[in-house]
C-alpha cells in the first residue's frame, strides 16, 4: 500500500486551469523528482500537498487516511488543516527562515510551540539535525549571517524537526549561486540514504537522474510522463519531454 496517494487533483485560479488531472502515488522511502518548465504547475502541486492551496477536485491520502477530498465543499476546519499539514514538510525556494531567530531557534520554534517533547529533547534533536546538515559551527548565527546554501540547509533541518512523513522541496537550489547548490543537494542525497520519503521539484537534471526513484515530467498542469529516471532521461516517450530535456541540456 502506497504511503501517499494523490488522485485526480484539479486546481484553478479563476479561469486558469493550473492543475488539470494529477494522479500519482509514492511508496515509503521513495524519492520522487518533478521536472517541467516554469508555469507547468509544480509549485501549485506542492502547495496543495501542504494545504497552502485547496484543490478544487481530487483526493490526497496518506497511509490509509483520506486527508482531503476537493469535491467535498464543506471547508476543512483550521485544526484539521493543521493536522493534515503535519504529514508533510515543505522546503521553499527562497528558504523563508525566521530572521529574528538564530539557527537553533529557527529549528526548535515549531516543536516547542507544538509541544513535541521536553525542552531538552527538542534541543538535542535540533542539535543532531544541525550536525546532520553540517552547520554545527553556526548554531548561534542569525539567517542574515549565513550564505544562501547555509540558509537552505537550516530550512531543511527546520522542516525535519517536525518529523514529516513526506518532505517536499520546491526548487531548493534555484535561488542559490551555482557553487552553493552542491552542499544542499548533498544534504538531500544524505536524507535519501536514511530512507526519507521525498518529493523534489528541481531543475538539476543530474541530481534527478542520480537520486530519484521516480521522475514526473509536468507540462501545462498534467503529468506528461512518469517513470524511472532511466525511462524519462534515456528513453522519453513523449515529444514534449524530449523537447524539454533537449532544451535543458542546451542551456548548459
Amino acid at each position, binding site marked *: 500500500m502506497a504511503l501517499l496517494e494523490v488522485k485526480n487533483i484539479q486546481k484553478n485560479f479563476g479561469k486558469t486551469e493550473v492543475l488539470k488531472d494529477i494522479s500519482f502515488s509514492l511508496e515509503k522511502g521513495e524519492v520522487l523528482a518533478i521536472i517541467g518548465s516554469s508555469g507547468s504547475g509544480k509549485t501549485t502541486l506542492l502547495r496543495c500537498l501542504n494545504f*497552502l492551496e485547496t484543490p478544487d477536485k481530487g483526493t490526497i491520502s496518506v497511509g490509509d487516511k483520506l486527508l482531503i477530498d476537493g469535491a467535498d465543499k464543506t471547508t476543512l476546519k483550521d485544526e484539521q488543516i493543521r493536522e493534515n499539514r503535519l504529514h508533510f514538510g515543505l522546503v521553499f525556494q527562497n528558504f523563508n527562515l*525566521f530572521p*529574528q531567530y538564530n539557527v537553533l531557534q529557527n529549528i526548535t520554534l*515549531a516543536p516547542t510551540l*507544538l509541544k513535541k517533547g521536553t525542552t531538552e529533547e527538542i534541543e538535542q534533536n535540533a542539535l543532531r539535525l544541525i550536525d546532520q546538515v553540517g552547520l554545527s559551527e553556526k548554531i548561534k548565527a542569525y*539567517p*542574515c549571517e549565513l550564505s544562501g546554501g547555509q540558509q537552505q540547509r537550516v530550512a531543511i533541518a527546520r*522542516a525535519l524537526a*517536525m518529523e514529516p512523513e513526506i518532505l517536499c522541496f520546491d526548487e531548493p537550489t534555484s535561488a542559490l549561486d551555482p557553487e552553493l547548490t552542491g552542499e544542499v543537494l548533498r544534504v538531500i542525497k544524505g536524507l535519501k540514504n536514511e530512507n526519507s520519503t521525498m518529493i523534489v521539484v528541481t531543475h538539476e537534471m543530474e541530481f534527478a537522474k542520480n537520486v530519484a526513484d521516480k521522475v514526473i515530467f509536468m507540462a501545462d498542469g498534467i503529468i506528461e510522463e512518469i517513470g524511472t529516471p532511466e525511462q524519462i532521461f534515456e528513453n522519453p516517450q513523449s515529444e514534449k519531454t524530449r523537447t524539454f530535456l533537449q532544451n535543458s541540456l542546451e542551456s548548459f
Partner: protein
Amino acid sequence: MSFLEIFAFLLDGFKISLLIFAVTLLCGAPLGLPIAFCSMSRFKPIRFITKVFVWIIRGVPLMLQIFIIYYVPSLLFGLDIWKRVNLYFTTGNQLSYAGSVIAVLIAFIINYACYFSEIYRGGIESISKGQYEAGYVLGLSKNQVFKNIVLKQVIKRIVPPMSNEIITLIKDTALANCIMVGEIIYKANVLAADKALIWPLFFTGVFYLVFVGLLTIVLGKVEKNLNYFRS
C-alpha cells in the same frame, strides 16, 4: 517675576503638554491596532468605512478636529459638557480647564490612532507571505505565526516611522492652546502679552528640545536593540 517663578510657570504649562503627549501615546498606540486590522479586514464594507475614516482624520488639520470636538456638543446639541466639566473642577478663582483638556485628548487620541494605524498596516503588509507560510507548513496556527514570527518583524519595521510620529506628537501638543488649554506655549504667550517678556518664548523651545533629545535617545536605543537581525 524672578527666573525661578517664570520657570515654574512655564513648567506648569509643560506638564500639560506632557500629559497630552503621554495620554495620547498610551491610548492612541493601542487604539491604532484595531483600526489597522479593520483597514485590512476581509469584509469590504468594514475596510471601506475604516479607510474613509482614516482618510478624513489624516486629511483634515488636527486643529480643526479639536475645534469640532470642542464646539459640536454645545452648538449642535446644546450640551455644554466641556465648560461644565471646567466649572465643576474650578475652585475659588482658580479656573480649571479640565473639560477642555478632555476635548483635546479625544481629538488627539483619534487623530494619532489613525496615523499609528497606517504605520501598523504598512508594517504588517510589508511582511512577506513566505514568512506566514513557513510557519503554517510547520503546523503552527495563525495566532502562533503572528505572535511568534510576524510580530517582532513588524515591530522592527515600525520603530523608525513610530519614532517620527512620536516626536511630532510632542510638538503638536501646542495645538491645545487653540481652545485656551494652558500648555507651555500658551503660558509663554501670557508672559509676552501681559508682562512684555520675550525671553520665555525662546526658553520654551528649550523644554521641547530637551524632551525631544531624550526621546531620540530612548527611541534610538529601541531601534538599536532590534538591529541584531535583518528582515
